[in-house]
C-alpha cells in the first residue's frame, strides 16, 4: 500500500513498490492521461508533475512518490474548468492524434509556473523531451504562447 496526493486528493494504491508510477496511475489509479510511449524516458508521453516538476512516470518506481504530490493532465483542468493551457490548445487546435498532448501539457504547465513569459526558444527547450509524430509542433508552441499571454493579461 502506498499513499500519495494525486491531482490534489489523497489516494492509496495497492501496488508493489517497484512498479512504475505510470502503470500504477493507469492501473489502480484509474487514469488515462499519462500514456505509455517508450518506457525509456525518450518520448515524454508519460510525463507527470511530481511536486511540480516534470518526471517520466514510465521509469519512476511508484515508491519514489510516496507522500508526494503527483499531478497529471487530468489534474490540470476539466472541460468545465480548463487550465489556460488546455483552453489555448483547443483555441489553436494544437494537435492531430493527440497521444503526445498529456505529457506536453504537464511540461508546459511546469514551464509557465517557472517562467510566465517564456520566449519561443524556452518553449522549444522545455518541450524537447517530447515527441510528436503528427507534426503539430508549431501549433503547440503557439498554444503555449497564447496561454502565457492570456495568463498575464
Amino acid at each position, binding site marked *: 500500500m502506498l499513499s500519495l496526493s494525486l491531482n490534489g486528493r489523497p489516494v492509496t494504491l495497492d501496488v508493489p513498490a517497484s512498479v512504475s508510477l505510470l*502503470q500504477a496511475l493507469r492501473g489502480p489509479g484509474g487514469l488515462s492521461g499519462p500514456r505509455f510511449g517508450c518506457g525509456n524516458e525518450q518520448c515524454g508521453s508519460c510525463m507527470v508533475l511530481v511536486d511540480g516538476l516534470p518526471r517520466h512516470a514510465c521509469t519512476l518506481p511508484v515508491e519514489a512518490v510516496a507522500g508526494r504530490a503527483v499531478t497529471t493532465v487530468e489534474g490540470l483542468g476539466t472541460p468545465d474548468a480548463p487550465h489556460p493551457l488546455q483552453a489555448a490548445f483547443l483555441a489553436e487546435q494544437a494537435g492531430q492524434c493527440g497521444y503526445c498532448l498529456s505529457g506536453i501539457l504537464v511540461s508546459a504547465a511546469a514551464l509557465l509556473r517557472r517562467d510566465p513569459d517564456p520566449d519561443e526558444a524556452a518553449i522549444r527547450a522545455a518541450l524537447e523531451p517530447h*515527441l510528436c509524430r503528427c507534426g503539430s509542433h*508549431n501549433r503547440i508552441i503557439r498554444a503555449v504562447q497564447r496561454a502565457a499571454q492570456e495568463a498575464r493579461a
Partner: protein
Amino acid sequence: MSGFGAALPPADGKPKLPGSLHANRRLSQWLGFSADGRVTIAPGKVELGQGILTTLSQIAADELDVDFARIEVTPAATPDSPDEAVTSGSLSTQDSGGALRHACAAARAIFIEVVAQRTGIPPERIAIVDGTFIGPAGAIGSYWELADQALLETEARPDVQPKAAAARRIAGTSVPRIDLPDKVFGAARFVHDLRLPGMLHARVVRPPARQARLLALRDGALPAGARAVRDGSFLVALAPTEWAAEAAALQLAGWAEWSAEDTLPEAGDLTAWLREAAGRGERSEVIRRGEVVPAAASLRRSFHRPYIAHASVAPSCAVACWQGDTVEVWSHSQGPYNLRADIAKALKTAPDKVLVRHREGAGCYGHNGADDVALDAVLAARAVPGTPVRVLWSRAEELGWSPFSSAMLVDIEATTDAGGRLVGWRSHIVSNGHSSRPGRDPVPTLLAAGMLAEPFPVKPSINPPLAAGGGAPRNGVPLYTIPHLEIDTTRLLEMPIRTSALRGLGATLNVWSIEAMMDELAAAARVDPLDYRLQHLDDARAVAVLQRVAVMCGWRERQKRDGWGLGLGFARYKNTGGYAAVAAEIEARERVFCRRLWIAGDVGEVVNPDGVANQYEGGAIHGTSVALLERVAFDRRRVTSDSWETYPILRFSDVPKVAVELIDRPELPFLGAGEASMAPTIAAIGAAITDALGIRPRALPFTPEQLASAT
C-alpha cells in the same frame, strides 16, 4: 493514410453513386435521426488523428441543414458499418465525404417528401432550419418528430442533387476538431485506454531474429496468476496486471530456445542488394508515351532511399475477447473489414465469427502494427474464453516489427534538346511492394500468421494498381510535359524485411528524384529552377501553386547567404490528388537544419481549411524528419533501430517554421490532403542543400555521412 483506398469502384452495372455509397447503398447504414434531436452518422472511415470525423460531420450537417453540434459519429465496426475498405490513400473525404454528402441529400429529400405529402405543401416551398421543416406558415415538423428509421431503409437514389457550393454554410469553415477536447483533458479515448471487466494484460515474446522458430520452451514458475500461451513460434505472457505480464514475458524469453539464421541483406550496401534482387524480380511497364525524340544532351542519375519506419508515438495495442466460437476485437486498424477478413483466415473460421470495433490509436501514417497486434490479442485471448485480453506492444516491437516502407532505387535518364528543354525521360524504379495490407490475399498477411504451429506463408508485398496511384511507381511519372516517356518498375520477389504502405508510398523517393533532375537540368540550361518547371507545366493548378509558393518565400528576391539555401519541390499526389508546392530554407552547419517551409496547396473543395492546413503542415514536418534523419538499421538477423535513440525523429528544437496557404476551389471535387506535402518537402530540402553547399545528394537521409559522399 496510404494504400489503395476505394479508388476503383466495382464494375457491378448498378447506377453510379458517389464514393463508398456505390458499394454500400442503404441510407440507414450511413445515418439515423433520433427523437431527442440528434443525428448519428456512421462512416466506415476511421479517425487516425487526421480529423476525418470532424470533416464528415461538417458535410452531413451542411447537407441536412442541422446545427453541427447535433451530429454524433458512431465508430466504425463490423458488421454494421459501411465497408469502406481502408482509411488510406488520402481518399477519405472523396470516398466517405462524397458518400455522406449524397446520402444526406437523399435522406433530406425523402423527409421533405413525407412532410409534403402529409401537409400538402409542395416540397420546393419547404425549408429546413436546424432540422425543423418550415412551410409558408411556419414549422411543420422536424427530423426528430419523424425520426423514422424505416424511411432510411432504402437505397440512395442516384438522381439526388446535393447543395450547390455557394449554399454551404458549415463545409468550408474551420470547425474545431470534435475529438480534440478528449485529448487535452486526458480522457479514455484511445484503444489503449479500454478497460473491460476482468481484463488480462499480455506481452508478446519476440524472437531474436527474423524468421526464427521457437524450438523449445523450458518449464518454470511464472508470477502468480500469469501463464504462457503458445502457438508454434507465437509466444505470449498473460497476467492480471501490466507489470506481471511484463515480468512473465521476461522470464519466458529466458526459457525460450530459438533457431536463428542470417536472413537479412548486408545493410552497408543496400543499393547493391536492390540491384541484385531486381535481377530476380518482376519487371513491368509503368508508362510508354510518345516517340523517341532526337536529343542534344542526356543526364543519367540514380537515387536511393533506405527502409523507413512509421514510428508512431504509441505502440500498437488491441483488446480481444472470445465468446464461444466468436471473437470480438477492439483495434486501431485502418480497415476494420479487411482486418476481419485476415483474422478469420488466420483462425480458419468464417468472417462473421469475428467482430472488429474501431477505437482510436496514435497518429497513423500507413500500415503499421495496428492490424498485427489485433491478431496477437485474438490468439492470446483464445486461451481464456470469456475474458478480455489487452496486448500492448513495446517500443522495440513497434520500431522493430511493424511493416516498413521499402528501401528503393531509381535510375533515371533525361534527354534534352539544344535549348535544354526536356524531350525524353526513361526511368526504372526498384523496390519491394508497398502493400501487404490485410484483406486482399487468400493468405493472411498479419505478423503472427507466419509464426503459428501451422504457419501461413509470408508472401512478398504487392503494389496497388497504377489506376489507384500505384505503389513503388507512385508519382514516378513526371507531371511535367515531356514528349517521350518510358518508365518501368521492378517489384522484388523476396522480402527479407516486411514492407507495406507508409505515407506517400514510392512518392517519397520518386518526387525527390524527379525534382532533383529538374534542378540539375535547369542549372545545365542556365534557367531559374522555378522558370524551368513552369516551362514544362501545362496544368494551370500546378502553375498556380508554384507561383503562389514563390511569392510566399520571396523566390524572385532571394539573396545568397553563406551556409544557407533555398529550394523548391512540387508534386501533385498520385498525379490525380492534392497539389503541393514547397519551398524549404535550410542552414548547413555540422549537420543540415531545415529552418523554414512555405507550402502552397490545392485540394479542390476544402471542407475544413484549418484541418487541411494541419495535414499539410504535419506531412511537411514528417517529410523533414524523413529527409534529415530517418533510416531503419539492421544487422543480418534483426532490425536494430528499435528505440528512439537508434531511430531518431525530428524533435521540437529542430522543427522548421511552416507557412501554409491553400487555393480553395469550392466547385471542384475534394482531392485529399494527408499525403500531398511530404514528398515535395523532401525534394525542397534536397534542393536547398544543393543551393547551400553546391553538392547534389543522391541518397536519403541527408545526414552528414551521406552528404560527404555527394558530389
